[in-house]
């Protein structure tokens, strides 16, 4: 069980220098998380969602602004575990070694880390595949391996970048439930990027709606549904209303994108 960690982003600015000038990816992004929250981030393509996760993971440095982890500004290592959309697994490692990677880095001995990894592989329902290589698994199975690897690392903050983006609807629902169960068991803060608005509403305690060019947080929406959420939640009128509300924000955004010349 991980220590609870709170994250606060203060006035984050991030720009990329390219040959064709400067791209402002994020401008004045400020938000703070609540305890063990499931926070979803939605927004149009290119609004800086991936950039935001990479900043929090410490893979990029902001141009200005601060990220405060549990009250202190400091190095990000081992506080976050990132789950990528694709290509996140090492193709040259078996499922077991992929899952155990974080433990290996921490210097835990092979026998121990494999034992622990095996229990996590089991948790995501892949125990009979622990000695297979990623290319021998389906896309959905690979994402479960990525999730197991992130959970085992015991980082208090889990960053997920469209983890189920390229998975069919049925498998996706199944994986979402699996993820929620792991989240409940392991008490983590999850930042979950998706472009699927229904997915965000079903999963999240709160949703950050971002708009692009430059990327900003446009609105923060709390989701009132109790958990566990089931099929009826998916059908409820409230859900439709929230979805509609987010769609409106993004619609404006898309139109702005179309009508305002750069």
């Amino acid at each position: 069980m991980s220590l609870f960690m709170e994250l606060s982003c203060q006035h984050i600015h991030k720009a990329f220098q390219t040959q064709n000038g400067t791209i402002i990816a994020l401008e004045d992004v400020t938000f703070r998380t609540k305890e063990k929250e499931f926070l979803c981030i939605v927004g149009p393509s290119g609004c800086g969602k991936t950039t935001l996760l990479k900043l929090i993971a410490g893979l990029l440095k902001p141009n200005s602004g601060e990220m405060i982890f549990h009250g202190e500004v400091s190095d990000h290592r081992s506080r976050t575990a990132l789950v990528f959309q694709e290509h996140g697994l090492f193709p040259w490692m078996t499922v077991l070694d992929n899952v155990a990677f974080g433990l290996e880095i921490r210097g835990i001995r092979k026998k121990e880390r494999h034992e622990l990894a095996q229990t996590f592989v089991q948790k995501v329902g892949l125990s009979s595949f622990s000695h297979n290589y990623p290319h021998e698994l389906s896309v959905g199975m690979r994402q479960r391996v990525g999730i197991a690897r992130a959970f085992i690392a015991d980082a208090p903050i889990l960053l997920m970048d469209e983890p189920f983006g390229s998975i069919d609807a049925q498998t996706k629902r199944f994986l979402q439930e699996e993820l929620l169960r792991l989240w409940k068991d392991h008490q983590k803060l999850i930042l979950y990027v998706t472009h699927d608005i229904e997915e965000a509403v079903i999963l999240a305690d709160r949703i950050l709606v971002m708009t692009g060019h430059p990327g900003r947080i446009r609105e923060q929406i709390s989701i009132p549904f109790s958990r566990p959420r089931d099929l009826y939640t998916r059908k409820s009128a409230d859900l439709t209303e929230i979805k509609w509300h987010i769609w409106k924000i993004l619609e404006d955004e898309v139109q702005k994108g179309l009508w305002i010349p750069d």
Partner: protein
Amino acid sequence: MAHLEDPRGRSAKRLMDTRLKDRPHLFLFHSEKWFAMGIVIAGLMAWEGGVRLGKISSLFFPAPSVILLTSIQLIMNGKLTTHLGITLWRVFLGFFLGGISGLILGLAMGWSRSLRMIVDPLIAAAHPVPKIAILPLIMILFGIGESSKIVVIAVATFFPMLINTVAGVRQIHPIHFEVAQNYGAGLNKILTRVIVPGSLPFVLTGARLALNMALLLAIAVELVSAQEGLGAMIWLAWQTLRTEELYVSLFVTAGLGVVFNFFLQRITLHLVPWQTEQRI
């Protein structure tokens, strides 16, 4: 925690089976191979018959049976094994020296952009030069003895190894580095767990090209400047018009190439179990 089955209902066993099936079978001969063997045998028999009937000049094309006898003779009196041993020694030493330096510089260049920027133009200029052409220059520097031969072979192996290693490191998906970094991997772990395995398929391709190059150069160097080795044996046989011996040394040289490639393929299958499509 509930134990969950894969929604597609595939079993690990089945996946393992397909993995094995995808591999080329190196030991089992397919019917195509039998066919090819048949053609070779038919050709040899026609050759033998042609010589016996006096239709083919036995000076230029000594009968296969004569070649076989000669090779047994050459093995028995130790001539062939000595020459073969010397060539093998040159090939392996040159391959080892050139390959290791190509590998190390290649990993470093793949990793460091600035090193790449500095070294790339030099490589681009030096690589296309046919390596046998620098033998005289090397001899001026290293003398006419053994070391200049090894150096030329090493130089020729160096380039394919270097170029493939650099490409191998460069094609590693950036996400793999980000994952390693995200989990707090240091340079050491990034090297051993990302760079080396990630570039390995390319490195092995480089090694295969390099080994072939080493054999090519060893023979070439021996043709022009040695008293011993398969290349020298070929040259001597030609000069004294002992064509049986010429054929024996040629076949042994060709056989060496085949054996090298066979072993490197086997090694690759063992070292790169995560790749199904073999790009060998």
